[in-house]
Every structure is written in C-alpha cells, then in structure tokens.
C-alpha cells in the first residue's frame, strides 16, 4: 500500500562528452543509443524521477557543445533536469539555466570559491544549486575527505564539515559520491551517506556503488538518503528501472509509482 508522503527519488545520470552519451550501448530499442535528448526522455518515460546530465568532457572542444546538448535535452524533458560537470562561474551556470536546466551541480569550483554557491542561489534560488562532493574514506576510520578534479586531487577537507558549509552558503541539495564505491556495484557507502544526511538539513543524493535493489533499499533505510543516483545506463535497462522502483515499493520505500 502506497502511503501519501514525500517519495524517495531515483535519479538517472547520463555521462556526456562532445554531445554524446558515453557507454550507452545497452539500449538497443533506441534508434540512437548515444543521444542525450533521446536517452533522457526514455528514462523519464521509464520512471526516472529526475535526470542528471554530467559533462565529463576532457577537452575544450568537447565542452563547447554542452549548452546545445542541454537545450536539446531540456526540450523533451518534463521532469527535473540537473546539469553538472565543469561549471566554474556564474556565467557558465547562467548559460546552462538559459538552455533549460532546472538545477546545476557544482563541485571543484565550489570548493575553490564557495561564494559561487551563494551567487548562483541568489540568482536562481537555493533549490537550483546542488553541491556535489566526491568523498573518499580515510582508511580505517569513519571520516571522509573531499576530492576535486574528478577525484584526482585531495583537498584535505572533511566531507561532513564541507557539506555543512555548503548548506550554510545556500546549497539546496548535496550530491554525495563515494569514490571508494563508484563503479563497483558493491552497494552505496551507507555510513558516508548517513553521516552527511544526519549532519545537514537539506536533501542528500547518494551516488556511487548502486547495484541491485537491495543496495538501494539499504541506502534509503540505513543511509537515510533522500535520493539515489543511478548510472542507469550501465546497470539498468529501461525495464529494470521500473522493476527497481516496484521492488523498493514492496520493501516499504515510498516511491513515485506508477509514474
């Protein structure tokens, strides 16, 4: 029995570079497996609660296509749409909002100049600013350190402290990625997620390590996550997204289903 309450969100993440979704070859039913606009719409159809488009471009030439990609993707999408990856200035954020993004996710730039959080929030509202944190566990402890530059550079910042500061500076949500779990499918880092979720009063999106339904149930129940990000193109066919939501619902996690 579905209860009438705020549901937990399943967020589909599309990694793009040069205007193409990478590693998106599992969707044989789609005409063009690598088109972000088409994939985003298909995920929305399949029951994703939000879509995140993450620009992982390595070169300036690849990045140049981002605004156009955002515009094309937003045109077909009527659920919340976040864009992240390499946004460094208010002007870059504005270009992405103008193209149709509802929220931006900022990471390295926020750590380098935290006032960026406030400046984007003042212009577009706190709900439009997601601070993404790449967290790595300090071995043998329950403490986590924030990394930047795609996880290549340590900052020495404690993740929980940084999340609190991001909140105080006006972030609307935290997107928290466990670098230790990312890409493993071994389950989310529930200790990390819970530590941050209990320390802040804004929603926390868990990311990194999502695999089977059990891992999602765990991160919502013991990790106290408000949402979970799935690199669905790796782990879920479109039908599996529907299956996942139904399994979570059966486990007592409030879900938007049917959509």
């Amino acid at each position, binding site marked *: 029995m*579905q209860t*009438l*309450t*705020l*549901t*937990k*969100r399943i967020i589909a993440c599309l990694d793009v570079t040069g205007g193409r979704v990478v590693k998106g070859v599992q969707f044989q039913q789609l005409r063009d497996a690598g088109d972000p606009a088409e994939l985003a719409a298909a995920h*929305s159809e399949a029951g994703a*609660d939000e879509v995140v488009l993450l620009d992982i471009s390595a070169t300036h030439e690849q990045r140049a296509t981002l605004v156009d990609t955002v515009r094309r993707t*937003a*045109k077909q999408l*009527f*659920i*919340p749409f976040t864009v992240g990856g390499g946004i460094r200035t208010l002007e870059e954020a504005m270009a992405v*909002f*103008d*193209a*149709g993004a*509802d929220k931006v996710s900022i990471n390295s730039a926020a750590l380098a100049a935290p006032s960026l959080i406030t400046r984007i929030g003042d212009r*577009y*509202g*706190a*709900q*439009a600013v997601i601070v993404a944190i790449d967290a790595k566990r300090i071995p043998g402890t329950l403490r986590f350190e924030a990394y930047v530059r795609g996880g290549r550079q340590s900052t020495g910042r404690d993740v929980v402290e940084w999340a609190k500061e991001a909140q105080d500076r006006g972030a*609307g*949500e935290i997107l928290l990625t466990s670098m230790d779990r990312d890409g493993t499918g071994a389950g989310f880092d529930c200790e990390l997620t819970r530590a941050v979720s209990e320390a802040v*009063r*804004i*929603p926390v999106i868990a990311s990194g390590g999502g695999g089977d339904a059990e891992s999602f149930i765990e991160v919502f129940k013991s990790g106290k996550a*408000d*949402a979970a990000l799935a690199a669905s193109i790796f782990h879920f066919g479109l039908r599996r997204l529907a299956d996942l939501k139904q399994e979570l619902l059966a486990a007592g996690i409030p879900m*938007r289903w049917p*959509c």
Partner: protein
Amino acid sequence: MIVIVDYRAGNLTSVKKALDRVGAASVVSDDPAVVVRADKIVLPGVGHFAATATLARTGLRQSIQSAIERGAPFLGICVGMQWMFAASEEAPRVPGLELFPGECRKFPKEYKSPHVGWNALQCDSESRLLCGVGSGSFVYFTHSYRAPIVEGTVARCDYGGEFSAAVEKDHLFGVQFHPEKSGAVGLALLETFCRL
C-alpha cells in the same frame, strides 16, 4: 494569448516549453501593457518571496489585478501561488495579492527543507483545474515555505503537516508544485488550464 509574467524570478523557459508541448500559444513578457491585455496569465516563480516585490515596483501587480478583475484566468506556480496569499514569513514586509487569506510559513525544524521531490496530492474538493488529475497523483515540489489550508484549497499535501498544494477560486488558480516538471500529470493540468 497566454502571458507568462517575467519578473526576473527563476527560470521561465521550462514553463514556456511545457505550454508549447500542450499546444498553447504563449509569450513571456515583463511589459505591464502586455500583461493587462492577456487572455490568460501564468505567474511562475522559484526562489524568494521577496522577488515578488518587483511586481509592485514595475506596475505588473496592477496589470495582473486589472486582468483578473475582467475575468482572465490566472495560474500562480510555486512562489507565484504563495503570492496569491496575504503574506509570507520569508519576506514579511512584502505584501501578497491576498486572493486567499493567511501567511506562508516555514516547515517545522525537524523536517529537511526545502521539501524537494515527488509527493502525492490529496484532492478532496471539486476543482476545475484538477479535473484530469486523480487523488494520489505524484507531482514535483521544491519549496521552503508552505501555504495554509484555506477555503479555496482543492488539493492538500503532507510534509510535516498538511499544506495547500492547489488553491482555486473562480478563475484564479494556484499550485505549489511545478506542473512543468511533473511529467504527464503536470502537462495534463496545464492543458486543462489552457482550455478553460
């Protein structure tokens, strides 16, 4: 023509895009002379209640009032709906339009805020706007303040207590959630508004 009022509050693109999708002709305008002649008015809004002060300063408030007095259907979204109430705790010195009584208040401290995500509508009154939307339908919210339950409440939502998710009085409509971001349910609602 539907006029989407531009008062520099948040992102109007998504509302325009959703109206395009349901086949309704609309323009985005910050010109009081355009707003006053509108067939229908949509007042979007994300962000801070204080942003609505711009409406009074630019003459848009008066244009909106004139248009709704002559019977133009009006839809306020999110902060746009909150502005239809008397006031908000978020900016106590900025008056609302007072089409509905009461003040918008913060969520209780023990609840995470903003209230972000998909929550269910509880529709328990007759509504022209929600006629195609079933009770229990999920819609997308993102807000830190909430409007009280009033006589015109046509849908409630529960997050740390009940609040108005949709209000309605004659040709005046307000929704706290974002129909332009609420998938098929939201598009159906916008289509209903466009056909009124």
